[in-house]
């Protein structure tokens, strides 16, 4: 390329300028609540959709309560890991608004497919918050009933669940449960790193061509373990949707109101039969990737501080105070409730027994298998041979 002639290649074709920061550039966020706690009446998405919310004071307070509780329970789990009670914990710190906003936008009939970090959505689905701790403690592999709560098991293999969500949504469509106001919709959660996986791109293709009633909800928390967003993409993630044939929108993922508004809209579109869409919740992972990660190796403190100023809970609190929707007593009561629930959680985790070893043979097949029955019997006999000994 000739010097002093940026953007023109030697063949005279105009090459698009390739900024290194392409993926993170201008956030273009849908926002309804500023970091200072100012309410924005309505916001326009890239396709001209107007987003607004209209909550009662009680509902605003409820969202705030959710955010605080979810953060506190998450902090308790982190502490439990540090004390050796959990093998690992994937914290949602910083991502509460994206999870509570989208989680509360779900209707009872909607189905969610999470990763391993969606403790806030799990909470919104009415699942006992102790449930994911069994997985991370190593006593089970996820103990809740996905059918009952319409919240699938956690998925650790990156991106795999987006295809499950797509298939489920195709099933909803085939069952004739779309096209009405009370139809069913499906939501798939995944991270920015996951967008590199073949599975996720295949899910985009399938959902699109089968017009699946599905919302792809990407929490862009800026990192896949140590790798920054630029290692996964050169275009803003929400813009990918266009290439697959469905709308995409980027929302301020630290704004619970906007997260709610865009998710509710996308779910409603899906249930009405208008097909899939992609939401990129632009947020930040404030803690480590998991408790076994050391983020100081790959990110700087000033970046974390900059995001601290966008904290989802602080801004909601500022809003409630400014609008006099909540008083000091309310905030104190929420803190107290969070404290009580986390103490309760801790007690129950400490009391979680190890499974009986023989249970590892359970549920391999719905109707059993002769070989496995034999192995179980031998195993039991073998374990009994130690009884009474110091083993």
């Amino acid at each position, binding site marked *: 390329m000739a010097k002093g002639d940026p953007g023109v290649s030697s063949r005279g074709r105009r090459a698009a300028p390739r900024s290194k920061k392409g993926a993170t550039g201008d956030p273009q966020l849908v926002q309804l609540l500023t970091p200072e706690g100012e309410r924005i009446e309505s916001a326009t998405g890239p396709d001209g959709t107007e987003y607004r919310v209209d909550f009662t004071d009680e509902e605003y307070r409820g969202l705030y309560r959710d955010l605080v509780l979810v953060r506190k329970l998450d902090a308790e789990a982190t502490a439990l890991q540090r004390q050796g009670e959990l*093998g*690992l914990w994937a914290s949602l710190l910083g991502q509460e608004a994206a999870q509570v906003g989208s989680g509360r936008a779900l209707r009872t009939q909607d189905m969610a497919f999470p990763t*391993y970090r969606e403790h806030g959505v799990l909470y919104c689905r009415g699942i006992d918050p102790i449930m994911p701790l*069994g*997985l*991370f*403690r*190593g*006593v*089970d*592999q996820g103990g809740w009933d996905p059918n009952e709560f319409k919240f699938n098991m956690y998925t*650790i*293999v*990156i991106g795999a669940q987006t295809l499950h969500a797509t298939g489920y949504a195709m099933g909803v469509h085939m069952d004739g449960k779309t096209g009405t106001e009370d139809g069913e919709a499906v939501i798939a959660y995944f991270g920015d*790193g*996951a967008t*590199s*996986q*073949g*599975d996720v791109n295949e899910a985009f293709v399938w959902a699109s061509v089968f017009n699946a009633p599905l919302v792809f909800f990407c929490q862009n928390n800026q990192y*896949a*373990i*140590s*790798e920054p967003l630029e*290692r*996964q993409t050169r275009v803003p993630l929400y813009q990918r949707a266009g290439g697959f044939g469905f709308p995409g929108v980027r929302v301020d993922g630290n704004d619970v109101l906007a997260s709610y508004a865009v998710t509710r809209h996308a779910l409603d579109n899906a249930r009405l039969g208008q097909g899939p869409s992609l939401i990129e919740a632009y947020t930040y992972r404030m803690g480590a990737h998991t408790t*076994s*990660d*050391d983020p100081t*190796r*790959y990110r700087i403190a000033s970046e974390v501080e900059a995001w601290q100023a966008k904290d989802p809970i602080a801004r909601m609190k500022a809003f409630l105070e400014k609008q006099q929707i909540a008083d000091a007593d309310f905030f104190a009561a929420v803190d107290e409730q969070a404290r009580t629930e986390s103490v309760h959680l801790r007690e129950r985790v400490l009391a979680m027994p*190890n*499974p009986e*070893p023989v*249970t*590892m*043979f359970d549920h*391999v097949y719905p109707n059993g298998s002769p*070989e*496995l029955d034999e*192995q179980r019997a031998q*195993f039991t006999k*073998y*374990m009994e041979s*130690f009884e009474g000994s110091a*083993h």
Partner: protein
Amino acid sequence: MATETLTLGKALNTGLRRALENDPKVVIMGEDVGKLGGVFRITDGLQKDFGDQRVIDTPLAESGIIGTAVGLAIRGFRPVCEIQFDGFVYPAYDQIVSQVAKMHYRSQGKVRIPMVIRIPFGGGIGAVEHHSESPEAYFAHTAGLKVVSCANPQDAYTMIQQAVASDDPIVFLEPKRRYWEKDPVELDGPLSGAYPLHSSRVVRPGTDATVLAYGPMVRTCLDAATAAAEDGRELEVIDLRSLSPLDLTAAYESVKRTGRCVVVHEAPGNLGLGSEIAARITEECFYSLESPVLRVTGFDTPYPASRVEEEYLPDLDRVLDAVDRTFGW
């Protein structure tokens, strides 16, 4: 000659460093291998010293890691791919068994894929699901791939360099629960040294029974042999090191002397490596055997929740129990 006491993980790191130094076409690629140095720090410091064109943080896509490495290999590079955990190799499985393994054959030898696929494998570290699997049989079953596993720091250091220097695509299984175990490592010995990559090795001589293992179970079997010696029984322990091709010369020789054989691995028993090994030993040593070849393996269940993995994994007691049974025939 330089000898240093290294953990198995650090020995791999040092071996990889040597490989990068020795051949400018060697590239390391994988998720988080750069700044972070890998989640187990096996590539720690390498990007800093060799740059991000030689130690490449890839997008989060395993099929992409292996598939692009195939292209790089065709182009003349020697990619060393890191798969973060055993349970995440499956998105790349198609590339490995359908492409990596077959290119040389299909091209009648004109295309070489000198690739190493490093996988931390096996259990015993209290991890959540998908982090403790033993996928070796899937790969060993595929012609065109070679599969090896190191069990101690010296082998880690030597074998990783031998693997990188080899023209074969190699699945290199690292016993993750042994990453932190230390031993003196001779750093300057010749690479083609006493033990070529595809050879097994007697790690404890004995006369009464032969115990065959690889990767994480070698340590377990050595401990079992120590315990057995206290009871007056001398076990010969052989580290197979190479799972495909299987080098059973030392094993045949040993079983012909001892008359008894136990094969140990973490992977489920059904159609595991132990089945193949038992069959071959039976064929080769039939008239010397005092009892059937026994296997001690993981159970035929998915890898269980970590609080019961101790019961799932073969341990010293289960190995000794099997040895006892070979004597009870």
